[in-house]
Structure formats: structure tokens, C-alpha cells
């Protein structure tokens, strides 16, 4: 066969009487030109193939023939349910032996009628209904998870919940000390930013010293705890979701169940307890570091350090300082819950783990901001 010169591929449907002949010509190659199709494709399989002028071919040719045969088979047997009701094998006469072999192989197993056409892309109303069902399922899974958590906490305080102390220690290590560098950096910078912004505004009133008050109150009430929570959402919430998600994909969670361990007690409880324990400590730390960052800027702006320090101490009341720490407990619960919930509901594949991680971070950050707003409203009403 001449390889260097190719002729354009073509197919022609010829009808004489009730019989259909498919004439194939040229070189059918995926890197060649698109085939030219002559005549209306008939509603029946060709009786015979004429391949006298057919040149070289690759998979494009059998793919073209198979597509036609499948379409014809789909029309001629409406509503076929089982595999046994398949039509007679279509004639492959006239094709070269290797083409016949390939087509026989492709036709050997009939198209799975259930797997092929799923009514996925149907009407808009159906899609809307699917979204509604999904949202409802998501909400009820959150409710279920919350109920589970409360029960597990109850078991824990009754001394009946089982998890390994070492797991608990590992989680504490991961979400506490190992998070310190990033918390330090972010809090310090946030403190500096607050001081810069405050300094520019307050300098015009000659009230530069109040930078200390601004930084201190903003840090301990809001910025310290919110920034820590967002860091922990991205760091620890994501880690929880990825860890539990891959445990699920690897059947490790099933293995826990069949040994009679409650995955909830065993995996969720230590994470939840660890985070609610660690978050307040991290928040206090972040507050101190943030105030130090503000102090650096204040000193650069000409406030004597002792003066700045005294002003800070007079600004921060115990009430103010405890508000942020109080909120951090709830943020910790929210972050641990979103991480574990998404991890335990992850699809059993690597893509599923990725999706679960994304959802965990998004829902954790959303929860943190929503809870914070609720507290802001509450504290305003209570006039704290």
C-alpha cells in the first residue's frame, strides 16, 4: 500500500431495490481529512460493503461503521430490555478479514441498555428538583452529624466513648504546635496593618496614642480569633476532610465498623475535642502576637514602648479579652465538624477526596463568619 500519497476518504450509500451497499474508498486516517459521506444513511444495516478502492485505514473506519450499526440496532429493537433480545448479527460481507474481526469483537457484547442512556439532561424543572433534593440531603446530613456529635460527646462524658489517647495527642500536636508559625506570621502582620491604618487616621487628630487601644481591642475582640479560625479552616479543616476522605476511599472506615468501633467516637470525637481545646489557646497566642505587631508600628510612629504598653493594658478589659476566646470554642467546633462531615461523606475516589476538602474549607470559613456575625449582633444587644 502506498503510504506517502493518500487519497481523501469517502463513504457512499447505494441502494438497489431493498438492498443497501456501503461503498468505502480512500484512506481513513485520524490525521487525514474528514470523510466525505454521500447519500442519506439508511435505516438498515448494509447488506454488503464495497471496499475495492479502500486504501489504508485506522480506527476511524470501524468506528464509523459501528456507529451506524448501533444506531440501526437501536431503532429496530424498540424497548429491548435484556441482553438476549439482540438482533441478528449484521452482515459484514465484503469487508477485509481484519476489519471483520474488529467489528465482530466490537459487536460481541451488546450495548448495555441501562448504562447507556440515562435521562440526565432532561427538563429544567427536573434539574431544579434535583438541586432541591441535593440541598435537602446536605442539610439533613448536617443535622444528622450534629446529632451524632452530641450523642458522642454524651458518651465521652459518660466515659463510654472509645478512642485512642495517642490519636488525640497526635491531632493536638498537628493542629496546635504545628500551626504556631503560620498563626504567628499572620497575627503579627494583622496587628501591624491595624496599627498602620489607625495611625494614619488618628494622627490627623493628634491622638496617635489611641493606636494602642485600637489595635488591642480589634485584636482581642475580632481579628485574633477570626484570623486564627480562618487559618485553622484552611489548615486543619482541610486536613481532617482529606484524611477521613481517604480513609473512607480505602475502606478503612468500613474496617473500623466491622471491628465494632464507632467511626464517630474513634475519628470525629478526638478531632473535635482537640480543636475545641486548642483554638482558645491559639487565639490567646494570636492576640498577644498581634498586639506586639501593633506595638512595633506604634514605636516606629514615635510612641514610647512603655506608654504604648500601659495604654494597651488600660484598653483591654477582662470582658473584652474573654469574648474572643469564648467565640474561639464555637469556631473550633464548627471547623472540626465541617472537616469531619465532608471527609466522612466523601465519594470513594481521589477526586471525591479533593471535592470533600474544598467543601470542608468553604463551609468552615462560611460557618466561622456566620457565627461571628451572630455573636456581633448578640454582643451588641447585650451591650458588651
Amino acid at each position, binding site marked *: 500500500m502506498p503510504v506517502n500519497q493518500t487519497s481523501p476518504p469517502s463513504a457512499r450509500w447505494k441502494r438497489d431495490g431493498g438492498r443497501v451497499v456501503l461503498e468505502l474508498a480512500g484512506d481513513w486516517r485520524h490525521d487525514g481529512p474528514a470523510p466525505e459521506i454521500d447519500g442519506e444513511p439508511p435505516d438498515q444495516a448494509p447488506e454488503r460493503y464495497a471496499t475495492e478502492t479502500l486504501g489504508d485505514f485506522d480506527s476511524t473506519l470501524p468506528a464509523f461503521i459501528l456507529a451506524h450499526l448501533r444506531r440501526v440496532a437501536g431503532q429496530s429493537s424498540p424497548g429491548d430490555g435484556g441482553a438476549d433480545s439482540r438482533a441478528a448479527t449484521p452482515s459484514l460481507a465484503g469487508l477485509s478479514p481484519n476489519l471483520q474481526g474488529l467489528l465482530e469483537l466490537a459487536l*460481541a457484547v451488546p450495548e448495555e441498555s441501562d448504562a447507556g442512556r440515562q435521562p440526565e439532561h432532561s427538563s429544567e424543572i427536573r434539574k431544579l428538583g434535583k438541586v432541591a433534593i441535593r440541598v435537602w440531603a446536605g442539610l439533613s446530613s448536617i443535622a444528622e452529624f450534629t446529632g451524632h456529635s452530641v450523642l458522642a460527646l454524651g458518651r465521652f462524658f459518660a466515659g463510654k466513648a472509645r478512642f485512642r489517647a495517642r490519636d488525640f495527642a497526635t491531632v493536638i500536636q498537628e493542629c496546635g504546635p504545628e500551626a504556631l508559625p503560620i498563626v504567628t506570621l499572620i497575627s503579627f502582620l494583622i496587628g501591624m496593618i491595624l496599627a498602620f491604618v489607625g495611625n494614619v487616621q488618628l494622627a490627623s487628630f493628634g491622638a496617635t496614642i489611641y493606636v494602642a487601644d485600637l489595635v488591642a481591642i480589634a485584636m482581642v475582640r475580632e481579628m485574633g480569633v477570626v484570623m486564627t479560625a480562618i487559618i485553622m479552616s484552611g489548615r486543619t479543616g482541610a486536613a481532617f476532610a482529606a484524611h477521613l476522605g481517604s480513609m473512607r476511599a480505602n475502606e*478503612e472506615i*468500613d*474496617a473500623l465498623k466491622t*471491628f*465494632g468501633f464507632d467511626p464517630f467516637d474513634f475519628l470525629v470525637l478526638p478531632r473535635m475535642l482537640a480543636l475545641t481545646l486548642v483554638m482558645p489557646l491559639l487565639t490567646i497566642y494570636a492576640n498577644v502576637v498581634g498586639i506586639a505587631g501593633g506595638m512595633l508600628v506604634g514605636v516606629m510612629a514615635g510612641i514610647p514602648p512603655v506608654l504604648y504598653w500601659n495604654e494597651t493594658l488600660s484598653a483591654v478589659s477582662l470582658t473584652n479579652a474573654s469574648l474572643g476566646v469564648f467565640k474561639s470554642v464555637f469556631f473550633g467546633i464548627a471547623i472540626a465538624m465541617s472537616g469531619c462531615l465532608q471527609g466522612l461523606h466523601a465519594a470513594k475516589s481521589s477526586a471525591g477526596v479533593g471535592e470533600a476538602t474544598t467543601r470542608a474549607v468553604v463551609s468552615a470559613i462560611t460557618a466561622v463568619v456566620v457565627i461571628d456575625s451572630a455573636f456581633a449582633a448578640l454582643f451588641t444587644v447585650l451591650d458588651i
Partner: protein
Amino acid sequence: MSQSQAPAKIAVRNLTMAYGSFVVMRDLNFEIAEKDIFVIMGGSGCGKSTLLRHLIGLREPAQGSILYEGEDFTATDPGERGAFIRRFGVMYQSGALWSSLTLAENLALPLEEYTGLSPQAVRELVSYKLSLVGLSGYEDYYPSQISGGMNKRAGIARSMALDPDIFFLDEPGAGLDPLSSRRLDDLILRLRDSLGSTIVIVTHELASIFAIANNSLFLDTATRTQGAVGNPIELREHSTNPAVRLFLRRGEEENETTSCPAR
């Protein structure tokens, strides 16, 4: 409820398995006697592993019931179910060892939880079970540090941790080299003979089916129900269901060597 004179170790009655509205298998009825090596076989994706997950209580049946020694497993409340489950030893397809624990810790976890053994005794038991599957010396390895076949064997060792009387093995031989696969078959026979365990295996490795199984269930993808129940060697010779014979002969029908089932 249904009554039988001498209750079988495991009895499945009219079991229908479904994912939502998609029925995987319907009307499964079979019994597994004590000390059986029972193989669940069938083509890929026919629901073998799904059936196993029903048997060990990880999925609820859409219909029907599963009885262990005459007691209905599907109707138990979670507390009673725990007692059932503790008699099971399950090996999952990939081994499913807990990846944050070493092999020794994987085996020790259930022992520490359910027995009052001293740490010394636990350690001895763990290294005994690991040596049964040919993994002694690997106590302090993490599952990610050993090969897939070793993970499977470690998974079997873990399933033996609590000396269960029923083993469920999900594709134990898949992906093993012929020698390891053979050794695994020997191990399974030995478990049955020396511990008197009942063993349920999901597999489609013909060689190992004929070597070890004395009873089997064939799940038929085309009809979505059980194709046959019985000794696999007898099924190969005498089954009235052509799909079963075809499966057990690797697609070669009597007096015919072509692999094309077109005609």
C-alpha cells in the same frame, strides 16, 4: 419468621440488594453451612462485593433477611449487632489497614479494645498472627511501606485478630503472584481445618475456586439473580445454567473452543 430444623451458619432469604432504585440483585436464597469454604463468584460488577457488604452489615437489604445460626441479623438493633459483628473477621479488597498505624498496632487495636490481655501478651499474639501470614518481622512497618500483596496478607492477619468464627475475604487472591496466591489458598484451608472457621470468599480466580471451595454461589449479571448454588466442580460439569458452565470453563463450552459466543 422462617423456621428451620438445624439452622445453617448463614442463611440468606429472598435478599434483594439495591442502590436507590437500581436493583443490583434480587431474590437471593442460599445457605452456608458450618466449616464451608463458600465462594461468591460472578462477572465484574455483578454485585459480589455488594453482597459481602450486606452479609457483614455495612449495607441494609432492600428486602429479605440474613440469618446467622437462625437469628435474624438484619432485624437486630445496633447494640446486638455489635455482638454479631465481633464474630466476623473481614478482609477488604485493598487490605484496608489503618494507614496511620503500624502493622502491629493494626492488629493490636482490636485486641486491646476487646480483651484484657497484658501488653506483653498482645505483642506475642500479634507477632504470632503476623507469622501465620508470613509477615513476621514486619511489625513496625506502616502499610504504605509494604507491597500490595503484603497489605492483603496483613489484612487477613488483622481479620484473624479476635479469632472470629466466620471469615469474609473480599478478593484475597486478586493481584497476587501465582505462588503467593497458592500460599493464600493453603492458608485459607488451614484456617478452616485448624480453627473450624466458616469462610466466605468473593473471588473470580478459577484456579483458587476449584482448589478450595466446597460450596459456591454464582451471581448472574444478565438475569440479576443467583445463577446457581453448589460445589463449583459439580457446577462446572452438571449445571443446568449455561452461563455458569461458561464462567467456570473460562468461556469454553463443551466440544467448542471458539471464544465467540455469537452463535
